[in-house]
């Protein structure tokens, strides 16, 4: 009997022991949100790009981790003297994962599809300057523009501009077929997506044999999963307060990179009292940026004073314009005819920078007499009521699109800033291709919106990546949402 019990115990112990996996060729990557589908050309969800960008799908050009734009499927290009015609020379010998050849016809198909009348591309504006795409020969494509566009190569590097094949695009949402170094293998919805190395990749093949993406939205679960070594890498780790624990643990490495996310306290410029620049300035001076970065983000994030990424060479540091000064804030409110402050709404979307930051900002505003009633919203609600319906006094959101200062030229954009001088400036900028002139114009625009206190400028969002020690080749920064695994390797 005792023998039997022992046998049973031993049996169950070995059955419960986790299966030892050959770990050095497979990578388990975690991220917070699961992509709704896997077609980057038909949806705005960043999670789609995180999984497929560069891994499965490639564009004519591509982003590197430092934000630079380098050749992708196009190995080189020429630009005509008037800036209206781009001739791209494609890499030869490129095949899609289903074995079909990638050629100029596919490029024309992809770009025409993205800018077509019935296109469901979330960034259709990227292609608005394109007048015509024509096939010169199987490896040469010519793109003709309506007007010179200084950012075409940049635009073509977006995940929304990747090259897809007419044969497989119908099923791309669930079974993406691209040209990348990894092939889609399996998707257990709600749980994970598996990719495997593409053995016939045209470029440098991937080091990893396979990788799987897992989706862990709960911050506690995220911490537990990394600590328990259930995942090897967590990109966009949701709880910055836990980073010191990982840093102190030799099993892990922590990378804190920058993003293109200007996190702002947006004010409804069309809604009294925010239509008064004195009130907006009062709000700006009531905010202690460092307390927000420390309190909400546990110190990660760079303060900003305007709507521009600090790591961009054209950035102008204007944080002094809106330095923390509650006394001045109260004086400004009095000058605006609101000595007792006022009551407004503060609508907060789900990310923790907004929810936590909002609680801190509400307390800081209360100190100068402004009552901000917090309302937490889901994204769908926020998009409908706040973003589209303009039903808000203030809101906190991170604008993660790269180089998006142009939104200030659109008076219908949700914060409703209407300044003809800035609009004219932006029109000039679009058609300017000279780098020095562009820099000067960008500096002018940054200063203009900072001096108008359009919004409260808080900080540039940082993205923490936690990985097992020794893993190499991960992106530090996130110039676009991407978890590019093509160069990642185990020690």
């Amino acid at each position, binding site marked *: 009997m005792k023998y039997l019990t022992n046998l049973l115990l031993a049996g169950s112990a070995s059955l419960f022991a986790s299966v030892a996996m050959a770990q050095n060729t497979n990578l388990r990557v975690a991220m917070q949100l699961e992509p709704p589908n896997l077609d980057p050309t038909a949806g705005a969800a960043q999670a789609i790009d995180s999984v497929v960008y560069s891994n499965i799908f490639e564009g004519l050009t591509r982003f590197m981790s430092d934000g630079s734009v380098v050749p992708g499927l196009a190995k080189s290009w020429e630009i005509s003297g008037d800036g209206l015609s781009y001739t791209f020379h494609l890499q030869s010998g490129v095949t899609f994962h289903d074995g079909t050849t990638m050629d100029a016809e596919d490029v024309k198909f992809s770009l025409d599809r993205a800018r077509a009348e019935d296109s469901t591309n979330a960034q259709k504006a990227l292609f608005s300057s394109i007048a015509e795409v024509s096939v010169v020969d199987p490896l040469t494509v010519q793109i003709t523009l309506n007007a010179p566009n200084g950012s075409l190569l940049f635009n073509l590097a977006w995940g929304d501009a990747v090259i897809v094949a007419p044969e497989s695009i119908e099923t791309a949402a669930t079974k993406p077929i691209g040209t990348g170094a990894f092939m889609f293998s399996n998707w257990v919805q709600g749980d994970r997506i598996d990719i495997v190395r593409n053995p016939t990749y045209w470029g440098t093949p991937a080091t990893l044999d396979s990788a799987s993406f897992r989706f862990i939205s709960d*911050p*506690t679960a995220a911490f537990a999963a990394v600590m328990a070594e259930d995942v090897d890498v967590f990109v966009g780790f949701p709880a910055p307060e*836990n980073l010191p*624990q990982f840093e102190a643990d030799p099993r892990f490495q922590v990378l804190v990179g920058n993003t293109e996310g200007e996190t702002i306290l947006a004010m409804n410029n069309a809604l009294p009292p925010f239509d008064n620049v004195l009130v907006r300035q009062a709000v700006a001076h009531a905010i202690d940026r460092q307390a927000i970065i420390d309190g909400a983000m546990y110190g990660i994030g760079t303060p900003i004073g305007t709507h521009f990424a600090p790591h961009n060479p054209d950035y102008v540091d204007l944080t002094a314009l809106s330095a923390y000064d509650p006394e001045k804030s109260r004086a400004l409110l009095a000058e605006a005819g609101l000595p007792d402050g006022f009551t407004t709404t503060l609508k907060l979307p789900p990310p923790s920078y907004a929810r936590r930051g*909002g*609680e801190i900002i*509400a307390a800081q505003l209360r100190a100068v007499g402004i009552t901000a009633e917090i*309302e*937490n*919203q889901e994204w769908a609600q926020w998009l409908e009521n706040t973003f589209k319906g303009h039903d808000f006094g203030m809101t906190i959101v991170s604008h993660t699109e790269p180089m998006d200062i142009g939104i200030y030229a659109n008076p219908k954009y949700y914060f409703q800033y209407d300044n003809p001088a800035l609009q004219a400036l932006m029109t000039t900028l679009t058609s300017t291709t000279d780098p020095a002139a562009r820099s000067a114009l960008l500096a002018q625009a940054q200063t203009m919106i900072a001096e108008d206190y359009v919004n409260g400028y808080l900080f540039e969002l940082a993205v923490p990546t936690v990985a097992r020690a020794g893993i190499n080749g991960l992106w530090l920064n996130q110039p676009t949402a991407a978890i590019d695994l093509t160069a990642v390797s185990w020690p």
Partner: protein
Amino acid sequence: MRLPRSLLIGGFLSLLFLGGAALSLFWTPYDIEILSISSRLQTPSAMHWLGTDQLGRDMLSMVMMGTRTSIAVALLAVGIGMGLGVPLGLLAAARRGSLLDEVIMRGNDLIFAFPSLVIAILITAVFGAGAMNAIIAIGIFNVPVFARLTRGSALSFWSRDFILAARVSGKSASRISVEHILPNIANLMIVQGTIQFSLGILAEAALSYIGLGAQPPIASWGRMLADAQTLASIAPHVALVPGMAIVLMVLGLNLMGDGLRDLLDPRIRVTRT
């Protein structure tokens, strides 16, 4: 007469929390609307008996304010449940066997058939997050509890002699329900009400944990737990204090409910699901 031990312990715990909540109307050790990032996550000390949270607020003050939110939400939710459920149950019992009875009872079954948390999330999605919507969501699911219990126990009285006497004397069914049946089932309602109240506290905690309850700066236990969950390994007290508050308050209310039942009428049955 000797009071049941459970009533004493339960009553003590409940009074402790009720007292704390009442006190918070006038005074808390610190103002929780003032943040102090530099003094965050302090362990319990003479200055802060239960330590400070991730924004440097005094945890004792937070728990007191949170108690208030919990009690207010649960009390109003039970109020909705009783206010609608008891009359419906009395009506169904008075018209037993009629189509109305059938409709009321099937309606109750139907509400029970809905997954409560999902409905709460949908209600919040429609009307926005806030304490009021948590009250409505919890209240709706309290209605069938009281309606069923009322109907069941009212039915057992309808066949009793004293009700028959009242019917013979010409009283209407609704008058009998209010004058004769209601007083007889009041004890049962108090006991069930206590149980529902404690379930309401748990439901409020669950809803605010997933972000559907009262919004900041109003303190709530569920949100305190949600905010603290990633800090449990750095500053355990931040996660333990609100959790213990929930457990002790619910424990106190349940013990009090049991004790009340023993005291008022040992025979009555209370459903707890």
